[in-house]
């Protein structure tokens, strides 16, 4: 299991570097699960639309001199070291440390970013608002950052890698670390742990119980699902086997003499016609 996730991490790392083209591909996958939901709830959708088009390896924005209390400036400063860490491929530990730090900062930043959706007048200091195009917001942006307007709107994509990719990467690393810890806890003898100094840990019973509970739950879930499908099967005499609310009659084709004929729109052929075609011809 350790090698599996490790190869997965290497694969995702190398594949993300190979993505030179502007293929922005964060479609809503149903298997994303909780992390997708967390990512969506923490980040305001408006800013995510801005950041989608830029690759993670794009060169950083020009750092502006402004007050240290400016959140946008703080964001840009913190973003640059994580981008430079990409090139240090021979030193994995600072890479992970910086990414964990960056993930925490992005989470706190996105929490404050949620204030944009509330549209309250007190959220004028939010960095997201300076990237807006509306007339009212541009007036407020000109008060705080006169340089913003001259540089145009290209800055919206220069905030580093996408948060969902950070979550994916941190998730992979966390899975590997958690797997190692679990295996150590489950298999290393107690005397070895005590000699190292680890004297308090959960009972070994759960190392067997939790995986067993998970496996039994999965098997029962599959069994119930297949059972539900059998229950929902209509009987052979049911009307729903031949007709339902989505059935469409064939539309009358327009008798046009044009050279190209359209593909007929989708419709149902009645079961009586099918029976005539299949079995009456055979009888004849």
């Amino acid at each position, binding site marked *: 299991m350790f090698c599996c996730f490790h190869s997965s991490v290497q694969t995702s790392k190398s594949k993300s570097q190979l993505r030179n083209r502007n293929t922005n*591909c964060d479609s809503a*996958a149903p298997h994303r699960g909780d992390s997708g939901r967390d990512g969506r709830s923490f980040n305001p959708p408006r800013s995510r639309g801005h950041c*989608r088009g830029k690759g993670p390896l794009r060169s950083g924005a020009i750092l502006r001199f402004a007050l240290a209390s400016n959140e946008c400036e703080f964001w840009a400063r913190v973003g640059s070291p994580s981008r430079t860490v990409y090139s240090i491929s021979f030193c994995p530990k600072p890479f992970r440390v910086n990414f964990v730090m960056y993930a925490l900062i992005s989470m706190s930043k996105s929490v404050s970013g949620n204030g944009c959706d509330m549209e309250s007048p007190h959220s004028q200091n939010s960095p997201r608002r300076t990237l807006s195009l509306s007339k009212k917001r541009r007036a407020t942006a000109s008060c705080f950052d006169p340089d913003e307007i001259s540089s145009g709107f290209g800055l919206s994509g220069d905030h580093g890698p996408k948060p*969902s990719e950070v*979550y994916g990467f941190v998730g992979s690393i966390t899975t590997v670390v958690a797997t190692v810890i679990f295996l150590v806890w489950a298999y290393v003898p107690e005397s070895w742990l005590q000699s190292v100094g680890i004297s308090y840990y959960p009972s070994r019973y759960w190392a067997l119980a939790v995986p067993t509970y998970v496996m039994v739950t999965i098997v029962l879930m599959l069994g119930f699902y297949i059972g539900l499908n059998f229950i929902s099967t*209509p009987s052979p005499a049911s009307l729903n086997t031949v007709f*339902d609310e989505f059935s469409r009659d064939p539309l*009358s084709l327009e008798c046009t003499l044009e050279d190209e004929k359209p593909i007929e729109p989708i*419709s149902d052929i009645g079961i009586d016609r099918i029976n005539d*075609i299949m079995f009456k011809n055979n009888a004849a």
Partner: protein
Amino acid sequence: MHNDRPDLYICTDHLLVYSIKHMTPSVCEGDMMDDSQKHRILMVSDFFYPNFGGVENHIYYLSQCLLKLGHKVVVATHAYGNRSGVRYMTGGLKVYYIPWSPFVMQNTLPTFYGLLPIIRTILIRERITVVHGHQAFSTFCHEALMHARTMGYKVVFTDHSLYGFADVGSIHMNKVLQFTLADVSQAICVSHTSKENTVLRSGLPPEKVFVVPNAVDTAIFKPAVDRPSGSEIVIVVISRLVYRKGVDLLVEVIPEVCRLHPNVRFIIGGDGPKRVRLEEMREKHSLQDRVEMLGAVQHVQVRSVLISGHIFLNSSLTEAFCIAILEAASCGLLTVSTRVGGVPEVLPDEMIVLAEPDPGDMVHAIQKAISMLPKIDPQAMHNRMRELYNWHDVAKRTEIVYDRAFKCSNQNLLERLSRYLFCGAWAGKLFFLVMIVGFLLWQLLELWQPADDIEEVPDFTLPCSCDEEMLEKNSVK
């Protein structure tokens, strides 16, 4: 039959007998296919009518054109509410709505082996020769492809979407795709960008992946005879109002364009969870008279919406291909689109204005499109689209892929299992185990319900007078 009974008590001999019996029909089928080149195709996906979308349209139009070429096409999908069982649709297209409840976003719960009995029955009843799966995140498709490969059928897979590489959902989805496509015969992608994406995600050899684009029915999407004239410029947006279609970009772009060009009006068709944001934008900027929202637009009504505009706006954040801009270009509309995924490959430069998925750049692109508008000839654009994108051409290219799949040599279980082992250090062993258990379950099904006992469906062809009879019936109504 009496001679077969003693073999039931010797498992090894029985398996050998069954393997010999299984190999014989495939050889005969191969000979038949070489002579007539007629395939019997099973399309499998979670997405089909009554659901609407690009994958659904692709499966339907491709099936219709393959039926016109003389092949037999059967579609298998899960039940949609009351629509359950077997239906016959236009052109004699048979659709199996298997009673398998959708779990999340019209995807069924992955059960590994739950679909094996019914997929096996369909394959034998219809005498299928090629199984064609559609869409990477269709669990129904992945299970059907896995079982079809176990039973020795030729398998073709079409990928319709682009996926990332680094977020949690994509990491898991790419591993599943690597498993399912490890043993696929051929794969089809709808654009070169999509091919690059699929090859990187699944580890397929690139020579196995063909690029067959989507198409549009140009006979349906025709320009208006007289274009909407006047000083008003109408920009049309038709898409599902979800996040990945870039509705948040529209919320920023529409007020700015309305401010810069007082003669611009927007028509927005489609429904979805992001519709509320558009309504709020309209309320906030007092654009009720300039932004018209139609709600859900049926596919038969799309043309009448398109021909009422001059410019089509596509703000997707990710697209492997974009059928909507094909339909708009076929109706003679100039297209403004985000430069994402496979969109730059779709149209020539004089038909489309590309922009980065950024509100400022999109506003600039719309301004450029408005300046290009007087030079656009809708009828010339339509004739160009008729040559470029045609469903019959797509069907012919897909037929070539099927023929190529048949030229691939048949492989026994050991060769296929060694391929699964290469999927990863630990995942490969898990995939290996899954395939072994699948093979054993298939052998159990062969014992329990032999293939000879399953009744085959008689073949039929709709007579040519079917259209006339339908006309008579409708005239009576």
